[in-house]
């Protein structure tokens, strides 16, 4: 009797002693009917207890009204590419569902400040959780960027889920040479359907930064701290998500911010000197699929190393200055031999699970032994950046070139002079 409801019907259900009137929610299952009552509350009702159902309205209308966006010829144009995540989602109070919104009108009605900063173009690329992204998605995003560059926009914002935003930022950094526009990745840790979302500040500050600076290249724009005022423009290759839920989850590793932006105070503080690349832009968008990451830990089993047989690249996230257990105890010896064998066909790069600081494989004998069998220092690259760099290099260059390029700074991924910056 209840199964035939698709959702959004206004009904009245009669139970033994009670009568409930409300709108059928789409999440009702075979045992429970969820009704949104007039008070706004949702309640679950056991379907088997329902005595009678009366349909009051076959399907309620969902109204949607948005503002009209006018082109302002005095303002630059900024394209927002949507790849997923919670940057632009809105609540439908009739169903209680959260719906992603991609039309520029919707964006401007949600974030009216944008209209005063730039003309907004909004482009749908994909709508996926960032943990589901694959290399082919990076290629799709890069193609969308190319299209926008050609259309002559001042800059590009990429709305992105935060979980793997730093991987995507690294991928885009390597894929483009001489990027002529800013490409700023923006995420949010609190979805934009709520009044306290960090999406608005991140998006507005990113747009303001693009519209008012000459920066070109890839960056990430997120909260500086837990206050809703300042965002950091962070270097794409030196940034990592370091907290599962805070709005200032992204921290710069072994580097400093490009700029600090506070739209409400009309303030942009440039921190890093801009080194804009000159020359015609181009992109190389191939990635090697057979690249992996191995995090070492006490009592590691050699089978873990052996499982990378056939891989072209491996990033080992070692301990401390860049170590993995390779002494003479039986299992560790097996690990050493497996590594030695693997390194003949696979480029092995060492990073540190300390996250901050540089790998130095000269200090202890372990490091020196690893170097002897071909393990290359990842310098001060984060594991995520090293992984993306290795996959991109192996996709576009020969193995010998890769071995040389991996520890050479190409796009700012390696900082030869680390200062006192820490958490």
């Amino acid at each position, binding site marked *: 009797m209840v199964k035939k409801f698709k959702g959004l019907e206004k009904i009245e259900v009669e139970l033994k002693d009670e009568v409930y009137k409300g709108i059928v929610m789409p999440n009702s299952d075979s045992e429970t009917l969820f009704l949104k009552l007039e008070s*706004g509350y949702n309640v679950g009702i056991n379907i088997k207890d329902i005595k009678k159902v009366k349909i009051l309205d076959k399907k309620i209308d969902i109204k949607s009204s948005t503002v009209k966006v006018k082109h302002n010829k005095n303002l630059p144009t900024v394209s927002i590419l949507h790849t997923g995540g919670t940057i632009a989602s809105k609540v439908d*109070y009739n169903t209680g569902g959260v719906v992603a919104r991609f039309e520029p009108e919707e964006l401007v009605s949600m974030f009216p400040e944008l209209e005063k900063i730039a003309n907004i173009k909004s482009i749908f690329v994909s709508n996926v959780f960032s943990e589901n992204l694959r290399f082919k998605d990076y290629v799709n995003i890069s193609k969308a960027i190319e299209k926008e560059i050609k259309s002559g926009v001042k800059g590009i914002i990429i709305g992105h889920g935060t979980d793997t935003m730093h991987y995507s930022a690294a991928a885009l950094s390597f894929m483009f040479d001489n990027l002529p526009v800013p490409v700023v990745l923006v995420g949010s840790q609190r979805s934009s359907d709520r*009044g306290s*979302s960090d999406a608005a500040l991140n998006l507005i500050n990113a747009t303001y930064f693009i519209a008012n600076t000459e920066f070109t290249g890839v960056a990430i724009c997120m909260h500086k701290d837990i206050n809703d005022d300042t965002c950091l423009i962070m270097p794409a290759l030196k940034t990592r998500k370091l907290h599962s839920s805070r709005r200032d989850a992204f921290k710069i590793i072994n580097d400093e911010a490009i700029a600090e932006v506070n739209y409400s105070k009309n303030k942009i503080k440039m921190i890093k000197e801009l080194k804009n690349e000159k020359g015609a832009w181009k992109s190389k968008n191939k990635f090697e699929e057979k690249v992996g990451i191995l995090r070492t830990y006490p009592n590691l089993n050699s089978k873990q190393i052996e499982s990378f047989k056939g891989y072209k690249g491996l990033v080992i996230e070692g301990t401390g200055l860049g170590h993995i257990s390779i002494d003479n105890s039986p299992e560790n010896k097996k690990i050493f031999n497996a590594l030695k064998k693997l390194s003949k066909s696979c480029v092995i790069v060492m990073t540190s699970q300390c996250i901050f600081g540089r790998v130095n494989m000269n200090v202890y004998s372990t490091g020196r032994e690893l170097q002897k069998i071909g393990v290359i220092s990842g310098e001060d690259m984060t594991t995520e950046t090293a992984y993306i760099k290795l996959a991109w290099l192996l996709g576009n260059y020969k193995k010998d070139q890769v071995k040389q390029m991996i520890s050479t700074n190409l796009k700012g991924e390696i900082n030869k002079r680390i200062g006192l910056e820490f958490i």
Partner: protein
Amino acid sequence: MIMINYKELGFKSGLEIHQQIEGRKLFCKCPAIVNDENEPNIKFKRKLRAIAGETGKIDRAAEFEMSKDKEVIYEACSSSSCLVEYDEEPPHELNKDSLDIALQICLLLNCKVVDSIQFMRKTVVDGSNVSGFQRTALIGTNGFINTSKGKVNIETVCLEEEAAKKVKEENNSITYRLDRLGVGLIEIATAPEIKDSEHAREVASIIGMILRSTGKVKRGIGSIRQDVNVSIKGHNRIEIKGFQDLKNIPRTIDNEIHRQLKTKNEEGHVRKANPDFTTEYQRPMPGASRMYPETDIKIIKITKKMLDSLELPELISEKTNKFIEKYKFSEELSRELIKMDIDFESYIHKFSKVNPEFIANVLVEVRKEIQSRFDKEVTIPMIENALGYYNEGKVGKDAVYEILVDFATKGDADLKKYEQVDEKEIEKEIKEIIHKNKNLSFGALMGEIMKKYRGKVDGKKASELLNKHLKQ
């Protein structure tokens, strides 16, 4: 004041009662501290945005707050808040103890508990919720309580989060403290079936008694709040908030009726109850609540097994009646005893040779008197010790008071002082006193005797003996 004919005026009134729950907060493990004694060691600033719904319209109350366009400053103590309160971490699972309390209350109010509980986000943009919404769930519907003027229906029982407390408001900023944010709150709404202003007080008092009967709700100022909805024929509903005392409800309602009679029909709004029984305009009535599901919290199915396993507490009113019927205590003494939250029956077993009324009096009256006379605390263990000596026959009835005074003021009591004296010895002494003071009155003689034997002889006994020897 003129007599009010409520029926003729079309008086309509219902209550909404909010009660804080003891224990831990609803969606994190922070203690449910309402006023943290520590200085705030955390401070941050936020900007809340009004989120327009599908109709493109922003809620009226929300708009009112937005028009202020203020920066919100939050102060917090790490002892009573964590990332969940700062909206920097999703809510943890619902506190099971709080759910049990809410379910108990539903059953005590004769409500039907919903089959599945879904927490909702109720949009709040005044800054009192860091997240921009209050988490709330409908737990029970269709209940009732019995009152002296008939049944009053309970429309809903909800379980929700307490909001942050406003501590400062300036031109362009508003400051909240986060101590109480997230403390569990039971919200009970009655049907608009209250008959008159005195009835409103009674209904509030009965519901308060039922809530306190669980023994798991907060006590003291601000831990329970009563909002009263009032309207008369031809007038919109007015909500009165902020009663400091239940006793103020009837006069405040009556004043509001007179105010409504004197004014033209206004738009419904919220008024603040003043201590002088008047009310003042506070803010417009919130529009229909904007709610959408809190997807960070799992839907909770309520099974029959869960409900059957709940132990329902004995109501305070039932306990009071039991004391009155069983021990013939006065209503006031019974109430005071229950307030003390002790197991009175166990005292009767423990001090089986002592009259129950005497035990009750020591626990309530004697304790109060010594405390106010010496400004020193009389603890339950002190009372247990003193009653124990009396029960074992080590001291007399009157010594109980003296021992408690010694305990409270000196921390110890010398029992030797109060050891019962042999009756023959006292009789001898009485004879002597009578002999020496032939001209003294009975009262003065008693005074002489008690001066010597205070605590060592029961006053009643001494007076009997004195009488006996005077007659001789």
